[in-house]
């Protein structure tokens, strides 16, 4: 009998801690958002009826989507290049990719403040060359949040893809070329379809990461370009609106889960199509 109970005894401490310090806290903040006298969705309905809130919601999705697309576009060729380079180089190239990933995100956002700011590198250079007379507003825009998010998550996309692309036989490319495809077509028709599982996993990481990131929108977005995470923080601290903050918390969790399920669903559909055509 003790033998059969043993695994549960081993698993119990972790599960109890997770229930006490993650599940119960989450329930305790989210439960009150559904009660106002009786059970109600009013808090959520009014959140999505407010134009200001909706703007923040759509901005968060838009920024995350664009950042994900850019990461795919930049990441796939780069990861393919790393996976095809000789072993002794691959370590170095992986280190170049890993280094930013392991560097603090405040540092990485700060780098873009020095590049995009009013007195930043781009504006100084353009003014010195006489191309512009007044500094451009590059920082504290959606554009700067997107660049910051791409910079934050591109390494994650590349590393995820390298893992997948390393397993693709390089003779496949040669076969495609022998059969008459030029390099670009061979890449699009052979490498790209084979890297879809990696693209999906990478996109989940980048999309949910950008959607819930706090540091980048806080440092690069300014007060005009608030995202869900910074809005939550603002509600809970400056505005003292804890219920509002909890509403945003559930919206963020729900959006994360929905995005993951959506990508998984797309992946499964593509798998099935692959089997059907094979």
């Amino acid at each position, binding site marked *: 009998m003790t033998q059969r109970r043993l695994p549960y005894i081993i*698993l119990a401490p972790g*599960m109890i801690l997770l229930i006490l310090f993650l599940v119960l806290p989450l329930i305790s903040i989210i439960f009150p958002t559904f009660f106002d006298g009786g059970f109600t969705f009013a808090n959520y309905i009014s959140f999505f009826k407010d134009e200001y809130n909706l703007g923040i919601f759509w901005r968060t999705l838009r920024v995350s989507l664009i950042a994900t697309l850019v990461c795919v576009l930049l990441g796939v060729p780069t990861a393919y*290049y790393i996976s095809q380079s000789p072993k002794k180089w691959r370590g170095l190239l992986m*280190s170049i990719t*890993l280094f930013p990933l392991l*560097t603090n*995100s405040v540092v*990485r956002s700060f*780098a873009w403040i020095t590049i995009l700011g009013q007195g930043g590198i781009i504006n100084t250079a353009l003014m010195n060359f006489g191309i512009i007379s007044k500094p451009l507003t590059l920082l504290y825009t959606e554009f700067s949040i997107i660049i910051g998010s791409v*910079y934050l998550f591109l390494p994650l996309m590349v590393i995820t893809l390298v893992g997948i692309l390393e397993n693709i036989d390089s003779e496949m490319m040669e076969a495609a070329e022998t059969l008459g495809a030029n390099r670009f077509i061979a890449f699009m028709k052979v490498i790209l379809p084979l890297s879809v599982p990696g693209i999906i996993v990478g996109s989940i990481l980048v999309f949910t990461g950008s959607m819930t990131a706090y540091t980048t929108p806080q440092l690069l977005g300014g007060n005009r370009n608030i995202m869900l995470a910074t809005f939550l923080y603002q509600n809970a601290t400056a505005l003292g609106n804890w219920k509002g903050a909890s509403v945003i918390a559930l919206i963020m969790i729900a959006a994360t889960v929905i995005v993951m399920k959506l990508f998984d669903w797309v992946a499964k559909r593509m798998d099935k199509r692959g089997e059907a055509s094979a």
Partner: protein
Amino acid sequence: MRKNIGLKSFAWLVFAFLLIPLLIIVITSFGTNSTIQFPIKGFTFNWYGKVFQNESFMDSFVLSLEVAFIGTLAALIIGVPAAYSLARHKVFGRNWIKSFFLSPTIVPGLVVGYAVYQFVVIQFQFPILQGLMLGHFLICLPYVIRVVGSTIEQLDFSIEEVSWTLGCTKLQTFFKIVIPNITSGIFASFMLAFINSFNNIPVSQFLSGPGVTMLPTSLMNYIEYNYDPSVSALSVVLMLGTIVLMFIIEKTLGLASIS
């Protein structure tokens, strides 16, 4: 392999995009001007001195190390046996339990911090520091479950059976046979969890108070009111830390083990 110039230049442009911003920070940290400038005028190490004289940076650095270490250690103590049990035992609802252990990754960090703050610190009056450590324990746990779990799954089960046959109890086998054979996984998960906890901002954002500020938060607060090269200097110090850690990982496990 034949080289493709287009692909090669594209990839190197991306590498430049990844590295140049960090390189600019390194250069600006030596500027003599009191605000950040690029290109710099003059050359000085003064900003590094300023960083080490700044008490709030130093205090928060020590706190960050402590919290990341305790969070990771707690995650290992709870997580390694749990990962073993999930890999080896017939557990009812195993996949469900495993995803439950990985669930802190689904909840956004800021929400984890907010929920722990509201429930543990406000409702149950725990000191903020304990809340902070709990929050970091929560985000460290999934790394241990995932990395140590996959190491145990690759470990040959028959060596444990041999140990039992030769008279070791299950507990002795766990400590004498299993643990020594999964040290690389334990070390890899320790490094991953530690680095992520040390760098994490969202979880700590709510869980800070007087005297309890983690280094990244302290740096972020500083950036909001200052634009001087001491920020660059501290960033460079943090980057050096990253390089040292990457070097240690490369020499012991190989960087491939954490990517």
